[in-house]
């Protein structure tokens, strides 16, 4: 494949997670920013090997959960104590105790939606197309192979040097990926 201007990046293939991790550390230390590692399962320690920070999904879930709890409490207070008060057995029109179980469930419901939507947002998913999904060998990334992809849009990317770097990590298959 010729390294034309339509190149998306360089892809290097590895057979084991250990080899991949060594290679990832090397790429990280070379200062690349627009690159990624593709594995059939999450490899433990890879976040550190790639120099990534802790995921922010927790914040989305927290905001979701807090919204859920407030929604439950406000909804029950407004419905049963304000909009149409129904006296039952001399009980108070609104009590945080009686309103707790539904609010608790809504906390969990909204928290779960927050976690999932937050994860999808941070991952920019769903997407219907990705240049890598057209690449022939890349289908093995969900099977039993491990890949590193360095994108051409990385400011440090240079056709020959980047390929040399990947070669020095011990990868046997290095190819260009068309955009």
């Amino acid at each position: 494949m010729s390294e034309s201007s339509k190149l998306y990046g360089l892809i290097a293939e590895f057979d084991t997670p250990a080899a991949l991790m060594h290679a990832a550390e090397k790429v990280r230390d070379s200062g690349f920013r627009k690159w990624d590692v593709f594995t059939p399962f999450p490899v433990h320690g890879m976040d550190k090997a790639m120099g990534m920070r802790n995921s922010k999904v927790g914040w989305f879930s927290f905001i979701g959960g807090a919204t859920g709890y407030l929604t439950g409490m406000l909804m029950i207070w407004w419905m049963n104590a304000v909009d149409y008060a129904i006296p039952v057995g001399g009980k108070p029109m609104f009590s945080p105790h009686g309103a707790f179980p539904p609010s608790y469930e809504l906390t969990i419901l909204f928290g779960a939606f927050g976690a999932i939507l937050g994860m999808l947002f941070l991952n920019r998913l769903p997407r219907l197309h990705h240049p890598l999904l057209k690449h022939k060998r890349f289908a093995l990334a969900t099977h039993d192979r491990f890949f590193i992809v360095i994108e051409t849009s990385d400011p440090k990317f240079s056709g020959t040097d980047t390929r040399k770097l990947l070669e020095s990590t011990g990868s046997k298959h290095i190819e260009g990926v068309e955009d």
Partner: protein
Amino acid sequence: MSEAAIPPTLKIHAPPAELEREPLVENQRGPGWISDQISGIVEGKTPKWWWVAFSISFPTMLMLFAVLAYLISTGVGIYGNNHPVMWGWPIVNFVWWIGIGHAGTLISAILFLLRQKWRTGVNRAAEAMTIFAVMCAGIFPLIHIGRAWLGWWLFPIPNANSIWPQFRSPLMWDVFAVSTYFTVSLLFWYVGLVPDLAVMRDRSKTKIRKFLYGLFSLGWTGSNRHWSNYEKAYLILAGLSTPLVLSVHSIVSLDFAVSNLPGWHTTIFPPYFVAGAVFSGFGMVLTLLIPLRRLCKLEEIITVRHIELMCKVTLAVGSIVSYAYGMEVFIAWYSGSPYEKFAFWNRAFGPYWWGYWTMITCNVLVPQFFWFKKVRTNMLFVWVLSIFVNIGMWFERFEIVITSLSREFLPSNWGYFAPTIWDILTYIGTFGLFFTMFLLFLRFLPMIAISEVKGVTPQADPHHPLGGAKPGGHH
């Protein structure tokens, strides 16, 4: 640090062979084999046993729809529900089915938080079981209210009378608990499926398969930047599902415990119901997975060790349930309330004594077999015992619902409940629905979490020789 630099006294030797844990995937199978084996179930020709099972379950499901049509068009009078037992079989079946679901969430969420890696072999199928069991459960409260078409009054939607639901009632809490439970279980299951749907997409030979698996895998590539957010979201979902599953059956038990009826009005109900739910759920997981591991040739992934561990959980929760039975009887006596005492005396020696002793046999005595390794490793024996667990837990709910209602405070309010044929057909019909859904799941989705099973093999560990680590290296 190199090998030579460690003083010999500080060296930790590998454990002796007999203390090594049995591997989670047998015969050192690698990630490629795992993909092939699990996807193969979906990609291969539909096996004969599947058609046999489907040809039974599908008509049974159709029968359920017919019975429901008859029920809704005629009225709840076709059931045995009548004064004083107004709850009858629908609520027994509701609690039974929803309890079954609890094992799925326990396996997927609580065992995840406890880092029990063996859960990966069974969680997908158990979660599917949860979802289908909750679907079956959801039918019953809706149909037994009489005018099923007004079921939406339970939701806080403005209606023509401008009246809102009454949130001081535990029945309202139940609506929120069960609908949240269903939604979150479904989301959790789907999130777990996304990377495996990508596996299916990348293996697809036909266009339609590639399109559908591709669509539902949301463009998953296996990127580590994605995995990082994904794993965090999965952990949070497990963390949210744990208090959720404990709350669902607690709230179901409050439907009973908040009333003043002897036999229902007890503080032990929430933990007792949760333990019972997990117990019955594990019974159902064993009932489903023991034949499946054989039929789908998954003995190397759902190993004998997996079955043994599930037997041990069943024994543990079964013991909690047995303790609750004992404590119920003790408190009935210790309370000094003649009504309480009578309620429990009546359960054991009244007109429903056969139900009580079936329950004791199945739930207290049967799990005791699980103390023995010989039993736990005998698949046929475990399978038979697991069915007893399912039966026992149905009778537990029968005893709680029926005996308490049939003997109230006033003898003039006493009665005897007997189900009609429609009660029985509805219950059988829900099995049709459950198994039809489960069989379709087996046929179209990977029944084992492919990427999660790969992740717990030594081949996935960059610090293990099988994962490519060199001796003496820092990985």
